[in-house]
């Protein structure tokens, strides 16, 4: 007790192995490159190795770039919602280089360890939070071709890695030797473990429809245009999609479920004591998970990498000359569509975050155990019964498909119309003060 309350001053830096941290890191890096290439030079499997290295580098690059973009984007979205401007200076156009500057700043910041912190665990926690968030992109298909490893249990792999993130948070909270951090970690643990269950039940519904766990197969089921997207097959899939989205909000610690880092209650939750790059790793992990959740929602429910146009229309373009193939990628199906849909869901998460207040812990638990869990189970049961009794080509199935498609289309049109309204009236909506006080105004 006394140790926890002792003054927070004593900080140790630059002792022991830390002084040589950067040289050691460099040597390890060079060694790993050498280790990777030496056998490759001798092996006949060199192309495979090159392929894998390329895939890993691609995944890391994508996640880093996305995280940097999303942080900037979140700040711009928040600013616009709050009638501010957000970053406007760094890099010129709308402060596009703000995240880069922040990253540089974080990189050179002091790595602070509290005197009472459990140092090995404290260091490990940031990696344990970050690495699974990175790894799950290995099995996340951006299209049938753009995937690092097309696992036949891809969905389970991704779910498992999404669930691993909680371990890092728990460790961080425990090792920080800060009571607020422990509160954050405990909240994260109970929230995430509870919401995994409705999440799983919601996922079982599209799996039941597709009959496979292979994400590329599930994605390719939905290539016959907008009505063929899984969420619009029948009402139960639509409900499952909503349940899945809400559950991912909770498991990504996004508002209104951002209790583990509720700054008005827990200061900053589990990462209160983290500084510099170690803190940035938690941030990166969060944004990577946000995109993964959004992309997963798109793959499982909303047409994966296919556009709302039926793939049938562009069949000949697929094998045509290069410009036709490129146009096919833009118009019909390709990684751009999946990234776009993922970004849309990330945007919805941001939108919710800057609009809604935070739920209390007991209400989070109530919503999970008393509402979402029974709903998800009943939904699964009902969907199973529906699949058993209603053949896919029957009139009832077609009517259900039509109604669900209409609901989806109306929702999308409503969202687009709202965005267009906001864009059209953007001067009026932000208020005269903002327009008058704009830099250069």
């Amino acid at each position, binding site marked *: *007790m*006394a140790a926890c*309350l*002792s003054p927070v001053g004593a900080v140790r830096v630059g002792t022991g192995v830390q002084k040589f941290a950067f040289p050691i890191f460099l040597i390890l890096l060079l060694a790993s490159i050498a280790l990777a290439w030496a056998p490759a030079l001798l092996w006949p499997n060199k192309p495979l190795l090159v392929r894998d290295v390329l895939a890993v580098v691609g995944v890391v690059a994508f996640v880093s770039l996305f995280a940097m973009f999303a942080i900037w984007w979140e700040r711009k979205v*928040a600013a616009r*919602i*709050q*009638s*501010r401007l957000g970053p406007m200076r760094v890099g010129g156009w709308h402060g596009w280089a703000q995240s880069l500057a922040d990253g540089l700043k974080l990189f050179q910041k002091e790595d602070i360890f509290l005197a009472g912190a459990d140092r090995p665990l404290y260091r490990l926690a940031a990696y344990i939070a970050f690495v699974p968030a990175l790894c799950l992109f290995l099995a996340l298909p951006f299209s049938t071709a753009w995937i690092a490893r097309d696992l036949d249990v891809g969905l389970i792999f991704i779910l498992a890695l999404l669930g691993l993130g909680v371990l890092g948070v728990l460790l961080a909270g425990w090792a920080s030797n800060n*009571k*607020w951090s422990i*509160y954050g970690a*405990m*909240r994260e643990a109970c929230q995430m473990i509870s919401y995994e269950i409705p999440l799983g039940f919601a996922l079982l519904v599209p799996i039941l429809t597709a009959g496979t766990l292979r994400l590329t197969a599930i994605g390719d089921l939905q290539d016959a245009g907008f009505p063929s997207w899984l969420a619009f097959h029948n009402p139960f899939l639509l409900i499952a999609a909503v349940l899945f989205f809400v559950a991912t909000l909770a498991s990504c610690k996004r*508002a*209104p479920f*951002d*209790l583990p880092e*509720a*700054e*008005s*209650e*827990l*200061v900053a939750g589990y990462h209160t004591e983290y500084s510099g790059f170690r803190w940035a790793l938690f941030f990166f992990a969060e944004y990577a998970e946000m995109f993964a959740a959004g992309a997963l929602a798109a793959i499982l429910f909303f047409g994966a990498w296919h556009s709302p146009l039926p793939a049938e229309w562009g069949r000949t373009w697929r094998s045509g000359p290069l410009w036709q193939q490129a146009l096919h990628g833009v118009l019909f199906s390709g990684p751009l569509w999946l990234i776009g849909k993922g970004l849309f869901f990330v945007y919805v998460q941001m939108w919710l*975050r*800057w*609009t*809604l*207040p*935070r*739920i*209390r*812990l*007991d*209400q989070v638990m109530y919503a999970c155990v008393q509402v979402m869990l029974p709903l998800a189970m009943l939904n699964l049961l009902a969907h199973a019964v529906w699949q058993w009794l209603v053949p896919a080509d029957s009139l009832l199935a077609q009517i259900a498909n039509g109604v669900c498609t209409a609901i989806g289309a109306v929702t999308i049109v409503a969202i687009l119309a709202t965005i267009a309204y906001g864009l059209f009236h953007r001067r009026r909506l932000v*208020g005269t*003060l*903002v327009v008058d006080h704009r830099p250069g105004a």
Partner: protein
Amino acid sequence: MTDIDPQITGETMPAPGVAPGTLHTEDLLVNMGPQHPSTHGVLRLLLRTDGELVVEATPHIGYLHRCAEKIGENVTPVQFVPMTDRLDYLAAMNNNHGYSLAVEKLCGIEVPERARYIRVIMCELNRIASHLVSFGSYGLDMGAFTPFLYAFREREYIVDLFEATCGARLTYNYLTIGGAAADLPAGFLDRLAWFLDYFEPKIDEYNRLLSYNYIFVKRTAGVGVISAADAIAYGLTGPCLRGSGVRWDLRRCVPYEIYDRFEFDIPIGVPGGTDDIPPEVVVGDSWSRYYVRMLEMKQSVRILRQCLRQIPDGEYRAKVPRVLKLPAGEVYLEVEGARGQLGFLVVGDNGPIPRRVKVRGPSFCNLSIIPHVCRRVLLADVAAILGSIDVVMGEVDR
């Protein structure tokens, strides 16, 4: 261990009974503050928690103590007016006003008619500004970031008006002994009229955005219920008292200045289900206290509109002697500040400097109910209760 206050380590508190062979648990003592996002300044709450449950909360104050009252006993009243700005810095005009009224009553100074209207305009504007900060930061306490920025956007218009009037944006030193320090600038009343037309519909917008939000109501309704009897017993005043259903407002009940000339209502907390009040609401809960502030902003707009119609031309300050002699005797006067009844005691002894200055800070008295309300509530509720009581530490510590 030895150099730590035993009260902090909890050694003096009874240890929870642990039967042998069972899992050992103990209450956790957590310091909420003095640096904490939702303690609104440098309040320190010592929480004894059992998991997420807060068993008891003890406020520790004094981190912002600046000997305000002692300074008041060493400088002349005119010199002390800037110090009153620093008490409740979110409603500095109301503090200026209260102290000036007390000194004027002691010295028998008659304030010109126009100065009285200027004072009411300033006080009501500052009440709106203060309630806006309260509304915005309460949203922030509940995890809704956006209302905070909206509140500050509207407050910016008021602060711009103040800046045009007296050059300062937070600590004004504008309302002073005998009236105001300067006349209203040219075009002030037009700008004020524009602001009132702009601002009034915004209150409804914020009600739709935050007050009636399902999650917000779930978080605040029925949390931290203070009964009317408790509120009176603990000396609660202002929106906290009215939130508990007591219709008591000094502007109406013990009219001072020229408040008896205006038509306005005193909003109080009402049970849920009536009108547009959500059904979960209980009289005296955090939501009621919060909502009373929203309604009070509307009433302030009403008063300001009447001021605009009635304000006469004339002097903005009475003739006050350069060296003001305070006659022997004492005056205690309370005004309705943004947070409650703000009282000033001034004792004169035929000299230019008061013998005694005492301030009754409403936040200080309102804060006293925290240990009573924060008993067996959740950690998140502490933020909800504290935000709804809306303390300003400058006024608590003085």
